[in-house]
């Protein structure tokens, strides 16, 4: 069951609705947001995913990280 999340990519002008799979890693989730915003924001190699003010381990899955429907996450550069 996909988990709808509010994704905010640093450099972008609008938040996007991202449908996450519970089993996908946060690295894949960050990439999914970058792809969704690629019209406006150039891809950057090193990014980190921030959830509830904490930088998350990118190897965790969405379920392991405790994401719930309509939570916010940010993908930041640097």
């Amino acid at each position, binding site marked *: 069951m996909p988990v709808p999340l509010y994704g905010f990519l640093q*450099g972008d002008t609008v938040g996007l609705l991202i449908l996450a799979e519970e089993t996908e890693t946060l690295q894949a989730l960050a990439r999914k947001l970058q792809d969704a915003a690629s*019209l406006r924001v*150039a891809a950057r190699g090193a990014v980190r995913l921030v959830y509830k003010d904490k930088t998350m381990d990118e190897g965790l899955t969405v379920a392991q990280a405790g994401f719930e429907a309509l939570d916010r996450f940010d993908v930041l550069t640097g």
Partner: protein
Amino acid sequence: MLSREEWLPLARKLDWNYSYVREDEVFPEVISGRPWLPHSEWKDWEESFKTSYREYVDNQYEKDMAVQAVRDAVGRIENVQKLALPWLNSLKIHAAALPLAEFTGVVGNLRGARFGRDSAWRTMATFGALDEYRHTQIPLLLFHPLLRLDSQFDWAHKFYHTNNWFAVAARHFIDEIILGQNAIEFHIATNFVFETGFTNLQFVGLASLARESSDHMFERMVTSIQTDEARHAQIGHPVLATVMKHDPKYAQYLVDKWFWRNWRLFSILTGLSIDYLTAPDQRPYSFKEFMEEWIIDQFLRTLDEFGLEKPWYWDLLLDELDIYHHMIYASAYSYRATLWFNFVIPGPAERKWLRHKYPKYWDDMDAVWEQISERWRTVGPGAENEFAVHGTAMPTFCDLCQLPLSAGTPRKNTARVLVHAGRKYIFCSEPCQWIFLHEPERYASHKDIVKRVLSGEAPAELPKLLTEYFNLTPETWGKDVHHGNYEWLGNRKDPAA
């Protein structure tokens, strides 16, 4: 027979004592508004115009004839065809947003004409209702015939009857400020904040832009409307003064709330027109400069006259002058098919102008436009490539203003999630959340577009969302006015080829 000077004060101030009903039954708080006060507290209600019905009709007739004359002279389709394409799309925004919003003003004023607390107030609100009826008719008269030129002008009638995301946001605002409002809050929010505080953006700012753009029909229309606004906007001042005397905290809340809600809508309506849809050499000022001169400075002086404080979010608002409408325009460009008008990419000369006017955050916005431009370079120009330079993921919306979550800066979006009564909400900014938390019972059950999609009320698939829910068609949905065919992109196609 009484002279005008003898008769008018009698006609305007015609209040009486009730013998078989109570005053609070004639003017219930739920529809007259709060604080509920006896008429003795309102009996000195006064405004400066003191017009009679005969004078009103004579004046309006003259103004209507002047509009008609300009329409006959320069309002034909061949005249409109000569306007620059970006400006024509500014007209489409206003053709949709203006007429039926003005019609709700008829309803709001008629509520004041019945439930206003003094007869002079009710007299003035009656004229206000007649004004707003005129403000509905004029733009419909001028804009809807342009449907023969361009099917996107169909939205002059259609806009508020659709579930287009911007219509949902505009309706959320208009329904609350005008249609569903009690007389006191209506007259403070609409006359004092909306008309005194903000409509200078439309009626002074846009009128001068129209003149620079050689659009004399639009210039005449907004100038004619402004003469009415200047009169009926006066209703708000004595209403606010009385509320301020009896409940200053509530007066401050209403001003703070409605200044923010007006700012959200007008920054889009007017900000996009001034800074993007007018040719650079026809922009006498930037949107920010106009806001500072005509809105910010004047509004602060007016607040001071009433003994009101600056809204608590003032520093945030000043910061937003540099960025909010730029965030919205870039977002809307990349989702242009969700709207009923066309867009233009700011080219190098425009971006240089924007950098000069908005140095604080322009580096970040410039990077966004460079990325969008690069996509057009990659796919090449052409109507067939519109969707290759278009967003595909669902954009998100604020649960208060219903506008895209585009507040803050590209570096730090200020959206915030709130759990209220077991349900999750998201707001674009702290003031939107603050307004929600003051009156959650008013806002909590409303669903933004994302929630409608997630609940199955609206289709998730973009083509279906555009056609079945937003009421757009391939002919009417928004496009790049040049389909990416810009000389400065270095990939221009010869239109004749």
